[in-house]
């Protein structure tokens, strides 16, 4: 196939695809060669007298019944594999997925959270999907499956990863400006390695609280901490710098102090940094979280 087949679902989908493609290529070949053959065989240059055949009940029945049977076969192939892909086994590990503009958050049963998905090889995993804002769709091409993430609703999918490796995760339901940047990876790990990672105490000891908030709230979907430009301005060196903003359409230069940073989170549309779109959503944050964010940004020199 075109891309790795890294899960049980991928194998099912690809074998269905191959069977259907074979039927279709034959059909297309018949139709096309009949056209070409007739155009050559009955060309006006051959000066044959045309025959006015009005139709044939027999043929109409033939080319209604045979295609009907063929499409029923295709439908059945699709249904059968779909049924397997959708029927969740009893023993599964459950991982929650929250999609938001424009990043992914994965939450494990033991409370671990991350922006990259890690799954054990050979073990069925069920993903419970939802969205914090608009529609998104969770897609892993190497597993051949996707399902939409709908706000205030839970959808699901499941798979058993079969090949160790790192594969793309894409968002395939248009969700606004950063849609094409809403990427992540799924890392398929041998069961032992996964267990070690899963059991390891939360890395949060090493991470400043502010950074964790940025990850959880999805701020890093648009802002970076390393100086590169994404959808929003980077956080690196922001604290204390001079920023040109548009306030009610008027340009002014202000210093990015604590007050400015807090306002930018609680009322994102108030001062818009010049050269960036006014699209940041209002995120629910507590005062304590705000303090921690500011504290963290201060350290990003």
């Amino acid at each position: 196939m075109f891309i790795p087949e890294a899960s049980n679902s991928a194998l099912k989908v690809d074998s269905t695809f191959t069977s259907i493609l074979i039927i279709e290529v034959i059909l297309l070949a018949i139709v096309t060669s009949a056209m070409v053959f007739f155009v050559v065989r009955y060309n006006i240059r051959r000066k044959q007298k045309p025959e006015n055949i009005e139709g044939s009940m027999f043929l109409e029945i033939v080319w209604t019944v045979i295609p009907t049977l063929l499409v029923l076969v295709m439908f059945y192939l699709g249904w059968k594999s779909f049924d397997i892909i959708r029927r969740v086994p009893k023993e599964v590990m459950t991982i929650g997925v929250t999609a938001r503009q424009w990043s992914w958050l994965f939450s494990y049963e033991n409370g671990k959270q991350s922006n990259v998905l890690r799954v054990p090889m050979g073990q069925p995993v069920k993903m419970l999907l939802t969205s914090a804002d608009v529609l998104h769709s969770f897609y892993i091409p190497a597993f051949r499956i996707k399902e939409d993430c709908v706000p205030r609703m839970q959808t699901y999918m499941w798979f058993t990863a079969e090949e160790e490796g790192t594969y793309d995760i894409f968002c395939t339901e248009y969700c606004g400006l950063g849609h094409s940047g809403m990427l992540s990876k799924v890392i398929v790990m041998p069961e032992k390695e996964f267990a070690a990672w899963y059991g390891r105490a939360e890395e949060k000891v090493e991470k400043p609280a502010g950074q964790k908030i940025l990850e959880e709230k999805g701020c890093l979907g648009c802002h970076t901490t390393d100086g590169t430009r994404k959808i929003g301005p980077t956080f690196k060196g922001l604290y204390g710098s001079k920023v040109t903003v548009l306030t009610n359409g008027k340009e002014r230069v202000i210093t990015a102090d604590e007050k400015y940073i807090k306002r930018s989170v609680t009322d994102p549309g108030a001062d818009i940094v010049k050269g960036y779109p006014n699209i940041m959503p209002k995120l629910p944050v507590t005062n304590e979280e705000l303090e921690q964010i500011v504290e963290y940004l201060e350290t990003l020199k």
Partner: protein
Amino acid sequence: MVMDNEAAMKAPVSFYGEEGRFKGIFSWIFSTNHKRIGIMYLVAILTFFSIGVILGILMRINLISPGKFISERTYNSLFTIHGVIQIFLFIIPGIPASLGNFFLPILIGSRDVAFPRINLMSWWFYMIGGAIVILSIFTGGGAPDTGWTFYAPYSIRTTANVSLALVGVIFLGFSSIFTGLNFITTIHRLRAPGMTFFRMPLFCWSLYATAWTQVLATPVLAITLLLIILERAFAIGFFEPTLGGDPILYEHMFWIYSHPAVYIMILPAMGIVTEIFPVFAKRTIFGYKAIAFSSLSIAFFGYLVWGHHMFTSGMSDTARVIFSLITFMVAVPTGVKVFNWIATLYKGSIQLDSPLIYSLTFIFLFSIAGLSGLIIGTLSLNLYLHGTYFIVGHFHYTMFGGAGFGFFAGLHYWYPKMTGRMYNEKTAKIAWLTIFIGFNILYFTMFILGLEGMPRRYFQYQPQFRTNHIISTVGSWILAAGLILMFGNFIRSLFRGEKAPMNPWGGKTLEWTIPSPPPAENFEKIPVIEHGPYKYE
């Protein structure tokens, strides 16, 4: 066909020279003559088509090197406006409003449509709708950026100028409803004496089936879009989940119209190629009734399959299975048509001129479209391919390769009748070849991109997709060159083309019994019909 040959010989003034109440431009924009309205629609529709093509090419240019020429925000607006224009301003009104308006009354032996003034009003609604859509690009919070599907809740939350664009689309919807109403009434009331339903040319049948779909499905779209406007203005809570609304309800309501709309696009194109096959094979059509009834059954079953756009939406699995089954069933009447067209070539005497070449290409491209449609109609494969470039490839093959090429076939077929001039056949063939090659390079690559997992509506992409994106973009340039050649040929021939005879192709339907271009009233004396439309000896 009994025709007043003498009257036709005298060649009364054509509708271009008609003396009306108004002079100059007003003799057009206030004309209620179906042929003038048809020509005005044609000019407007092809203009919008060209704008849409330019936007498409800009998108392709971005995809060679994302961000270098075009920003993310602009790209998102480009595919939105491109989609809105190509769907609502080009392909939906496309054939019925232009060629249908011009030829339907002639083909059934009538002097005009049933409601000429509503016909004019539909054109005005179309122009107003088009103007509003264009206006929405430059005003308010910036060009709409939702995709042509306007999915909630994003379309409710975005600050872009969505409401205005939706008002434009609602106008376009009404224009389409007016045309539908007019055609249904015309076909029921204005057929010439002896022109029974089963003596009508099959293009009329396809317009008839289309018209019912326009009248019955389009109001749903108008209501749905109106709800989005209300939701944006007053936060009512139809579709916005934070207000208790349901975004999946929006998807249902949107596709209840927009799937049948696919048949509004394709049926008239099928009608056109059905006219062309017998004329260029010099024999009667194979399976008249099978083709007529398959049009009706496509239009009918087209209502029941909208859910195949929502296989991954979170809709129940049972619903997914049922929608998939019905989707597969619609393929059958479509197949029946293809087989009857090909059988019409059997034992004919085939003259391979550009209208037939475009019709054969239509069958080829539309077969690929339909077969790729079966792939994504397959439940398990949909989970893989939904929302990827496979879909983009599929719908361009359907709408452009199918409906678009059918339209081009019709333009070549009826150009002599509409303008009174012949185009250059050799140039037409070269243009066809260029378009055909460019088209397949541009869009077939998209199937491969989709199989590789490339999502649609992506401004930028992972490096593994780069090569195919570049190939696809090169295809778009070849296609553009072909289109310029085709339209150039048409425009040049308006002035330089040879005078067209009354019946350049040896057709048997009524339009070929009156002068090219036709007189204002079409028929000096309404013909009396005594047999079916494709009577070759």
